[in-house]
Every structure is written in C-alpha cells, then in structure tokens.
C-alpha cells in the first residue's frame, strides 16, 4: 500500500527532476552522432579525459590524506580559533572557483607569497603544470571530504574509543582500528563527493594552472575551448563527462545515500 504523497510535493519533485534531467537530455539530442569519431579526435577527447581522471584521482587522494586529520582536529580538539579554521575550510565551497584560483596565484604563483620562495630556492613553478592543476582542484574539493568526515566523527559514540583505550589501544591504534572504520561510510561518501567536484573543476584550474592540452587541459577546460572552435565537439566532450560521472555514481549508488 503506497503512501499518499501530497500533490504539491509530487509536483515540485517533478519540476526538480526535470530541472536536472533536461540539460542532459538536450545534450544527447543535439550531439553530432553522425560525425562522432571526427568530433572526438578533433577536440583531443582522449587526452583531456586521461588528464581529468589523473588530476581528479590525485586531488581526491590528497584531499583524503590531509582532509581526514583536519576533520579529526575540527571534531575532537578544542582550541581558540577552531571556528575560524572551520570557516576557512568551508570557504572554497562558497567562493567562486575563479576567486580561489586568484588566491592560489598570489600565494603560489611564480611571484606569489610562498611561490616566490618555491621558485627561487627550489626551482619549482606550479603554474602551467599538471601539479598546479592538482593543487587548484584539491583546493576547491577538499572541503567536501573534510565536512563529511567531521560530521561522521561528531556522530560517533565516544564510548567505543574510550573502551578501546582502556583495552590497551594507543591513540594511533584506536584511531586506526576503531575510529576510522566506524567513520568509514561518511568518509567514503565525502570522498566520492570530492572526486565528483574535482572532475568538474574549471575556474580555479584555468586561472591558476592555465590551459594546455595534455598538461593542464582537463575535460571541463577542453569543453570550454571547444565551444568556440567546434560546438559539436563541445557537446560530445560534455556527454563523455556526463556518462562517466553517472556511471560511477550509479555504481556507488546506495553508498552515497548512506551519508548518515
């Protein structure tokens, strides 16, 4: 016996569904199916795709590596300025990505605050490099895994960690064998969101790392460039991105919903 939903709710839900489905459907309808192969090679689809996957996975890995400890600090320790730190962590989500890119530029660009030292002392320049694209992407997507993990940590029953300590577990052992496994679902959901955001990242990347095929031109950048040169190709690239994203998200399916 199905629950009776109020008509207004159903109507709004329909609008919501149409809103997100329409652009995807339109892409499928307008794609130049007849000259697909030519369009694909013309806009450097495979190179852009490979780069996108590399950059998004690297950004996700780094985000998890430094994001999880950050989440732990935010959730568990008390220190003055903690709220300020959390605000700073959330900021990249709120800011337009281009603003993030500009910030990275003045911080890590060749004449940047820290970038100057990187260049003069270590001979490193991040702008115009794939590493730079990874940095820009990590900057905008890390907050997602931090927030999800922090929420998960806050929701944990602390009795388990206390019991683990009483059982002889050092703080690191407790973290590794009790805390982390128990917060794994939320962490995983956060990591998936981070990866999704990383895959679609554009503004900070083009501002900080630039746009060069094979080095910094990820799929979103390729689409942007293709718009001017080959609108049909832009549609094809967009579709590839959509199909891959949908495939991954459907495969992870219920786990994403388990953001408990």
């Amino acid at each position, binding site marked *: 016996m199905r629950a009776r939903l109020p008509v207004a709710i159903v109507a709004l839900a329909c609008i919501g569904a149409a809103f997100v489905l329409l652009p995807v459907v339109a892409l499928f309808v307008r794609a130049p199916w007849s000259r697909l192969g030519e369009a694909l090679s013309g806009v450097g689809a495979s190179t852009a795709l490979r780069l996108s996957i590399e950059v998004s996975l690297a950004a996700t890995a780094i985000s998890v590596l430094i994001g999880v400890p950050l989440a732990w600090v935010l959730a568990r320790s008390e220190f003055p300025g903690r709220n300020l730190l959390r605000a700073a962590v959330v900021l990249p989500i709120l800011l337009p990505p281009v603003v993030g890119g500009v910030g990275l530029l003045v911080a890590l660009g060749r004449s940047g605050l820290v970038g100057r030292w990187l260049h003069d002392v270590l001979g490193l320049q991040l702008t*115009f490099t794939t590493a730079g694209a990874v940095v820009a992407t990590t900057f905008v997507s890390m907050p997602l895994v931090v927030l999800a993990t922090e929420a998960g940590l806050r929701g944990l029953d602390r009795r388990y960690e206390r019991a683990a300590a009483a059982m002889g577990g050092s703080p690191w052992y407790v973290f590794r064998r009790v805390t982390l496994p128990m917060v794994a679902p939320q962490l995983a959901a956060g990591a998936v969101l981070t990866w999704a955001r990383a895959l679609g990242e554009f503004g900070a990347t083009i501002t900080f790392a*630039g746009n*060069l095929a094979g080095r910094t031109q990820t799929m979103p950048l390729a689409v942007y460039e293709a718009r*001017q040169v080959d609108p049909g190709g832009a549609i094809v690239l967009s579709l590839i991105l959509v199909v891959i994203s949908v495939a991954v998200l459907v495969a992870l399916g219920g786990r994403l919903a388990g953001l408990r």
Partner: protein
Amino acid sequence: MLAVRRVVVLFAVAVVSVGCSSSSSSTSPAAAATPLTVFAASSLTKAFTQIGQDFHTANPDVTVTFNFGSSTDLASQIQSEGTADVFASASGTAMDTLQSAPGVTDRTNFATNQLVIITPPDNPAGITSMNDLTRSGVKLVLAAEGVPVGDYARQALKSAGILAPATANVVSNEDDDASVVAKVTSGDADAAIVYTSDVPSAGDTVRSVAIPSAVNVVATYPIKVVGGSVYPDQAKAFLDYVVGPSGQATLAAFGFGPPSG
C-alpha cells in the same frame, strides 16, 4: 494515486507546449531610458566602457550595457540568442559568420589593432626580440586558436618563420586577451603576445617588446548593428558615435589605431 498521475500528465503537457512555442516575443520599445546591449571584443573593454559613459552623457535617454568576451564566443551567442543590438568584433571572420543570420546592417570598420610582445616588468626570461620566444624553456602564453588575438599571434609567428619552435614553448591557451595579460602581470608567464591596445591600460605591470612591422598583423575591427535589434535607431546612433570624432579620440587614447577605411 490518481491525483499524482494527473499532475504528472499536466506537467508533461506544459513542458511540451513551452518547448514547441516560439521563444522570441517582441516588446515595444519604451519611451524613456532605452537599454542598448552592445557585445564587444574583450580587447575593447576599457575603451568602450569610456565611450559608453560618454555616449550616455550625450544621450541621457539611452543606457548602454556591455557584454565583453572573445569575438568568436560573442558571435555564437548572438547566433543562438540574438539579444545584442550592436556587435563590435576584433576580427572580420567572427562577424562574417553572422552575415546571413541574424544578418548585418551598417557594417563599418572603426579601429585597427596590432600585436605586441609583453613580459613581466622584471623580464625573467630576458626577452628582447621576437626570436627570443623560440629559446627553450621560455614560458609563452597565447590566446587559444579560434580567439582572434590567438589566431593573429600565430599568423605573425608564422610570418616570422618561428611558429613551430614558439608553439613548443606555449604553456597555456587562454580564452581572451585579458586572461593572457593576467598571466603576465601575475609574473607566471615569461612572455605573451597581445594587442598593442592592451599595453596602455596595463601600465607598469608589463614591459613591451615590439614585433617587427614586416610580420606584424593589422587587425581590423568591424562594428555593426545586429539584424533584428529592437532599437535599430539608437544602435545606429551608437555606431555613429564610435566612428565619430569623440569615439575615435577615445580609441586612440586607449592604444588603437585608426580604421583603414
């Protein structure tokens, strides 16, 4: 359940009917405060903003709103949306695409521009001539192919016979000349090729290195009233203003050359 099904059907009908109906609707021009939409190449940003203000002072009943971007981009927007009254492009090619649809009236050349090499003030790579762009390790930034200034730059490099080695040094293909300049002012690029008109407004944030006139490109900027504009008279007035003495003076002040007729 029946109620739900009914809503879904109604909704589907609404979507289909909206999709089938024509999208444009004509509104009669307002008597006061005419809004004029001008699409202009991004290299014209500073010059046209000034011209827009001056035009409004001279014609208080017209307010000019600008949309600056790469000419190719703007051309495709006009083709699909058609919401511009005036289009000022950095290349004739971009404008040619609009010849048939939505059509062009009163097409005039109003300025020319040339190319110049710019470097950060401290010139980290020591660029003093065009040939220095071929030195290995130089970080060169250009606008992407398909963007007028990007095509012009490659044309000049080809004329100079250094297209291949220079292209090997390209580290980024930007979307418009403003982004190219930004990469130089931030100090991350060693050199870039942009319009001469970009230099005066950049001031001390860049150093310029001349490109020999033998290989330099003269970009002719056409301006036109967009076919189907709802304010053709005011659009023509703006066009005349740009081509007139006041507009020309402003353009010259911002580094543009006179139209070659």
